[in-house]
C-alpha cells in the first residue's frame, strides 16, 4: 500500500491501456498489448473476431477506425482472471515496421485506449492480486533483462531467493526485539540475565548482512565482473591490428603474412563503467595440422564463454563461403559485432549477402581513428545493455529493494546506538520496528504476533 499509494492516484484501473511490447525499431515482428474492459470490443471492431477463443492464435486483419486494413496480424485473447493483469487482454502480433506499429497504436488511442505508463501492466497484475510486490518487481526485472543469465536470475528471484533471505533477516530482527520486549513486558518473571550486550552483537551481525545485500544491489548496477570480448575471423584480416588499436598499445604482432598469431593473447582495459578482457585469436581456416586444430578448439571455447564476439572479415579480399558458415555455426545465439576491416582498401567482395548481415555491422580501418572509436562505443553499448549478472546470493536486488534495505540498516544502526547509550532499551524498539517495517515493503509483512511467537518460545513466561 505504502509504496504505490502516490502513484495510484494517477492510475485509474478503469482505463484500457496499450503498449508496444517489443523494441521500437525495425524488427521482424512487433507485439502490441492491450489490457482492460475495451479488449473484447477491439477484438470485434478492429480485428473482426467476434468471440475470440482464449489463448488461440487468430490470423486476421487489423482495420483502422476508418475501416482501412493496416496489417495482417495474429491476435491472441487472454480472458479475465487468467491473463497477466487479470483483466481481459489482447496481444496483437504484427509486422515489425515502426511506422506500422505506430499507426496501429494511434488507431487504438482513437478507439479510447490510452498508452500505459511504465510498469502499468505489472501494476495492474499486482493490484488485481495476481502477484505480490516482490514478484511484481521480479517480473518487471524479467521484462528488462534480455540475456539468458539475467533471465535465470530473475527466475530465481521469482522463486523467492531474495524473499527467503529477507524473511530470514526479518526473523532475526524480531528475535532481538523479543529479547528486549521480554524484559520490558515481564518485569516480574525470572528471565535470567539481561541480554542487551548479546542483542547489540546480533544487531551488528544483521547490519553487516544487510550491508552485503546492499552491496549486491550496487554491484549489479555497475557490473563488477570483467566481461569477455573475443576477436575472431579468417587469417590476416587485421584482428591483431584491431586488438592493438582498442587496447591502445602494440601488444600483438602484426604481420602481412597469414597465420601470424599462434598464441592467444589477452588484455584487460576499462571502457567507461565496465571492464573488458579482450582476446586475440588465431585465424580460422581449413585445418592443416593438429596444432592448428587445437588452436581452433581453443577459439571455440573462448567464443562459448564470451560476452561479445567480434567477427572480422577483410572487405578487400574474396572469401570462400565455407569459412563464413563455419564461423556462423560457432557464434550461433551469441552476441556479435560483424566487423568489415580494411575499409580504406577497395571493396572486392560484397558481404551484404553474407549470413552475418543480420548482425550489427561496423566498417573499420586501423588508419581511421574515428572508425575505432565508433567500434569501441558500439562494444560498450552492447555490453551495458545486455550484460550477465552474477552474485553470491544468486539474486537480483533492484533499486527500490535496495533502498528498503538501506533504510532498514540505518534503523538498525540507530537502535544499536540507543542500546549502547543505555538510555533505556524501550527507546530502541521503534527503530527495530522501523527496520522490520522497511523489509515489509519488500516481502510479506511480519507483525507483533510473530514477535510474540519468538518471545514465548525463548522465555519461560508466567510466574
Amino acid at each position, binding site marked *: *500500500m*505504502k509504496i*504505490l*499509494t502516490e502513484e*495510484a*492516484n494517477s*492510475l*485509474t*484501473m*478503469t482505463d484500457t491501456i496499450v503498449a508496444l511490447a517489443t523494441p521500437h525499431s525495425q524488427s521482424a515482428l512487433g507485439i502490441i498489448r492491450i489490457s482492460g474492459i475495451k479488449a473484447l470490443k477491439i477484438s470485434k471492431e478492429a480485428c473482426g473476431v467476434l468471440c475470440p477463443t482464449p489463448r488461440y492464435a487468430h490470423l486476421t486483419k487489423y482495420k483502422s477506425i476508418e475501416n482501412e486494413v493496416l496489417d495482417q496480424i495474429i491476435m491472441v485473447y487472454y480472458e479475465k482472471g487468467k491473463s497477466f493483469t*487479470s*483483466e481481459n487482454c489482447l496481444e496483437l502480433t504484427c509486422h515489425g515496421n515502426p511506422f506500422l506499429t505506430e499507426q496501429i497504436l494511434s488507431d487504438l488511442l482513437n478507439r479510447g485506449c490510452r498508452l500505459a505508463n511504465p510498469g502499468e501492466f505489472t501494476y495492474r497484475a*499486482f*493490484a*488485481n*492480486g*495476481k502477484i*505480490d*510486490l516482490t514478484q511484481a518487481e521480479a517480473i518487471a526485472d524479467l521484462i528488462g533483462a534480455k540475456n539468458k543469465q539475467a533471465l535465470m536470475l530473475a527466475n530465481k528471484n521469482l522463486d523467492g531467493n531474495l524473499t527467503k533471505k529477507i524473511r530470514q533477516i526479518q526473523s532475526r530482527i524480531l528475535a532481538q*526485539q523479543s529479547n528486549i*520486549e521480554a524484559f*520490558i*513486558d*515481564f*518485569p*516480574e*518473571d*525470572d528471565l535470567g540475565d539481561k541480554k542487551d550486550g548479546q542483542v547489540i552483537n546480533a544487531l551488528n551481525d544483521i547490519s553487516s548482512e544487510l550491508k552485503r545485500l546492499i552491496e549486491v544491489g550496487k554491484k549489479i548496477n555497475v557490473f563488477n565482473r570483467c566481461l569477455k570480448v573475443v576477436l575472431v575471423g579468417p587469417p590476416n584480416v587485421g584482428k591483431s591490428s584491431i586488438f592493438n588499436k582498442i587496447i591502445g598499445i602494440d601488444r600483438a604482432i602484426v604481420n602481412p603474412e597469414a597465420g601470424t598469431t599462434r598464441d592467444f593473447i589477452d588484455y584487460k582495459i576499462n571502457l567507461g563503467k565496465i571492464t573488458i578482457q579482450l582476446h586475440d585469436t588465431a585465424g580460422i581456416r581449413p585445418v592443416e595440422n593438429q596444432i592448428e586444430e587445437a588452436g581452433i578448439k581453443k577459439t571455440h571455447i573462448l567464443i562459448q564463454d564470451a560476452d561479445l564476439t567480434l567477427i572480422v572479415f577483410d572487405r578487400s579480399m574474396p572469401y570462400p563461403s565455407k569459412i563464413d558458415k563455419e564461423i556462423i555455426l560457432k557464434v550461433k545465439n551469441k552476441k556479435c559485432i560483424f566487423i568489415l576491416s580494411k575499409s580504406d582498401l577497395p571493396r572486392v567482395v560484397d558481404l551484404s549477402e553474407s549470413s552475418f548481415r543480420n548482425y550489427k555491422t561496423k566498417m573499420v580501418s586501423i588508419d581511421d581513428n574515428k572508425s575505432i572509436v565508433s567500434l569501441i562505443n558500439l562494444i560498450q553499448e552492447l555490453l551495458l545493455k545486455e550484460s550477465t549478472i552474477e552474485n553470491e546470493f544468486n539474486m537480483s536486488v533492484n533499486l527500490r529493494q535496495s533502498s528498503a534495505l538501506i533504510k532498514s540498516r540505518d534503523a538498525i544502526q540507530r537502535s544499536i546506538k540507543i542500546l549502547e547509550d543505555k*538510555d*533505556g*532499551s*524501550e*527507546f530502541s*524498539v*521503534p527503530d527495530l*520496528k522501523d527496520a522490520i517495517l522497511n523489509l515489509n515493503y519488500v516481502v*510479506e*509483512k511480519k*507483525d*507483533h*504476533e510473530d*514477535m*510474540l511467537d519468538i518471545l*514465548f518460545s525463548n522465555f*519461560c*513466561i*508466567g*510466574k
Partner: protein
Amino acid sequence: MNISDTKQNPYDVIVCGAGHAGCEAALAAARSGSRTLILTGNLDSIAQMSCNPAVGGQAKGQIVREIDALGGEMAHNTDISAIQFKLLNTSKGPSVRAPRAQCDKKEYQFRMKHVLEQNANLEIFQVLVTGLIVKNGVCLGVKTSLDIEIYAKTVVVTTGTFLRALMYVGENKSDGGRLGDHTSKGLSADFQKYGIKLGRFKTGTPPRILGSSIDFTKTIKQYGDKNPIKFAFYDTCSEQERFHVEHKKMFHVEHNTDKTSQVPCEQTNTTAATANIIRNNLHKSPLYKGDISGIGPRYCPSIEDKIVKFKDKDNHRIYLEPEGRNTDEWYVNGFSTSLPFDVQIKALRTIPGLENSQIIRPAYAVEYDYAFPTQLSLSLESNVISCVFFAGQINGTSGYEEAAAQGLIAGTNASHKAQGKSAVIIGREIGYIGVLIDDLTSKGVTEPYRMFTSRAEFRLLFNHGSSELRYYSVHDQTSLISTKRKYKIKDKIESIRKWTYFLNRTKIESNKTFGDLLRSDQKFDFPTEFSSLSNEIKEEVMYQVKYAGYLKRELQNLEKFKHSEKIIIPQDFSYDGIPGLRKESIEKLNSVSPNTLGHASRIPGVNPSDVEILMIMIQGKSIRK
C-alpha cells in the same frame, strides 16, 4: 426491580454479568444518564477476582489509570482496597513503568457492590440470563432463568468464562465457570442460533493455601513501595469528590486507612523434586491427555507446561500472595495446574516453605466459550445482532483490567445508543484501551488476549502518568467525568505545555537550557515556582523534556498513523465482487467490517495488495459519486 412494564417502558441498558467488565459497564451507562439494570447469577460474587488478588502490573496498570481517566471505578476501588502497592520497571524509563497492587479480595468486592447499590440510575437483580430477545436482527432484551423477560434498548453481555464452562481437577470434571459458581449453557446455544461464532479457550488457577501452614522462615519477603503510586488521579479529582460509599457510613468492612502498614508477599521457588513429581504424573493432566481442547494463554502457562517446555530451568519462581487482611487464605502465584488433587499436594510440598502447606481450595483448569471479537465493531456493538454489546472475557481476553476497560467502553456506547448519541471510539493512538479494542476487533484472538506494552505502536507516549491528558479529548463526547474535573485536566494540560516550553527554552548557564542539563543528567535547581507544582505535573514535564528527542519522533509517527486512519471505508461498502480481492480476504473483511483503511490493513490475512485494491476502490467509488 420493576419488571412488570419493561415491554412498554424498557430499560435503557441491561448489563448481563457483574464481573469487572459488568460493573464498569453498568456504572458507565448509569453515570452517562441511562436507566440501567445489572443482572448477576450471584450477588455474592460481584467484582470477584477469580484468579490472583492483584490489580495492575505491566501494561495492565496503565490500563487501570486510563480507566480512571475515563471516569471508571476500578482505579479508585483498587486504591481503597489495596494492601500493597508496587511500581514495576523502575529501572527503565517512565513509559514502561507500571503500577501494581495486591488487593484485599473481599474488600474490593464489597466496596464495588456498594458503589453499584448507591447509584440512583442503577438497579441490581440476581437472576441468570438464559437468552436474548431478538427480533429482525435487533436485540430487545433478555430472557432469564425465572422465565421473566426483561426489555431494554440495549444489552451489554459480560458473562466472562461462564459460557458452557467446564472445570478440571485431574480426571474430575464439573460444570462451572469458577469454583462454587454456576455455568451458563443456554446462552451459548442462543448466540449460535443468531449466527454468533464461538471458540473455546482454557485457563487455570493455582491452589489457595492456609497462611498458618506456610513456613515463612524459608521464603523471601517482598515489600511494597514506601511511597505508593496510586491508580486514580487525585490531583484532578480528590477522594472527597469521588463517588464514595465510605462517606455514607454504610460500609461494614473497616478498610485500613493506615497507608504505611502494607502487607508483604513472599517469594519461593519450585525444586527438582517438584519437576520430578509433575513429570511422573503428566499422564493424569487433562491438558496432556488431550481432554481439554481449548487454547490456553502462553504468558500464563500451567506449572506442567513450564516444566515440559523449559526442561533446562532448574526451578520456577513462586510468589505467595495474601488474599486479604481479614483472611489467612494465600494465593500460590506460578502454580496454576489441572493435575489431580493428590498430585497437587505432593508437588506443592516439595517447595521450600510449603512442606506442610494445607490446600484450602484446589487448583483447577477452566474451559469456556468465547465469542470471536472480530464480530464486533469498534464501539463493541455486535455486527451480528444490533443493540447488543460484548465486553470482557467473553471476547477472548484475560485479565480484570482488560475486562473492565471493555466494560467501560461497551457500557458507555450502549448508553449512547439508547440515547441516540454517536458511539465513542478510542483510537489506538490514544492509549492502551484503544489498542485493546482495535486489536480485538481487527485481529481477533488466537489465545486469551492479554495486553503487553509491545502491542502499542506508540508505547513511549503511553506512560501511565499521561493517561488523563491523552483521554481528555474523548470527554467532548461523554459525560463520564464531572465538568469540574474536565476543567482541572485542561489546566493540567496547559501547565504541562507551559513548563515544558519553559524548560526547553530557558537558558541558565553558558548557553545551556534546563532541558540540556536534564538530558545530560547534570545537577541544577529548578525554579521554585516549578518545584511547588504537583508531582503529576512535574513528572510529566520532566519526562517530556528529558526524552524530547525520542518523543518527537514518536509524535511524528503518530501523525502519519492518523493520516492512514483517515481513509474511511463507507458503511455500505461491499467487498463482494471487487476484482482482484482474494476470497479469503473478502471473507475476513466481511466478518470484521473495518471502519478505516488502517483498520483493514491490520486484519491478519488481508495483505498489502488487498489494501491497495481497497484504496483504489474506495477512491474510485468516491470519485464516481
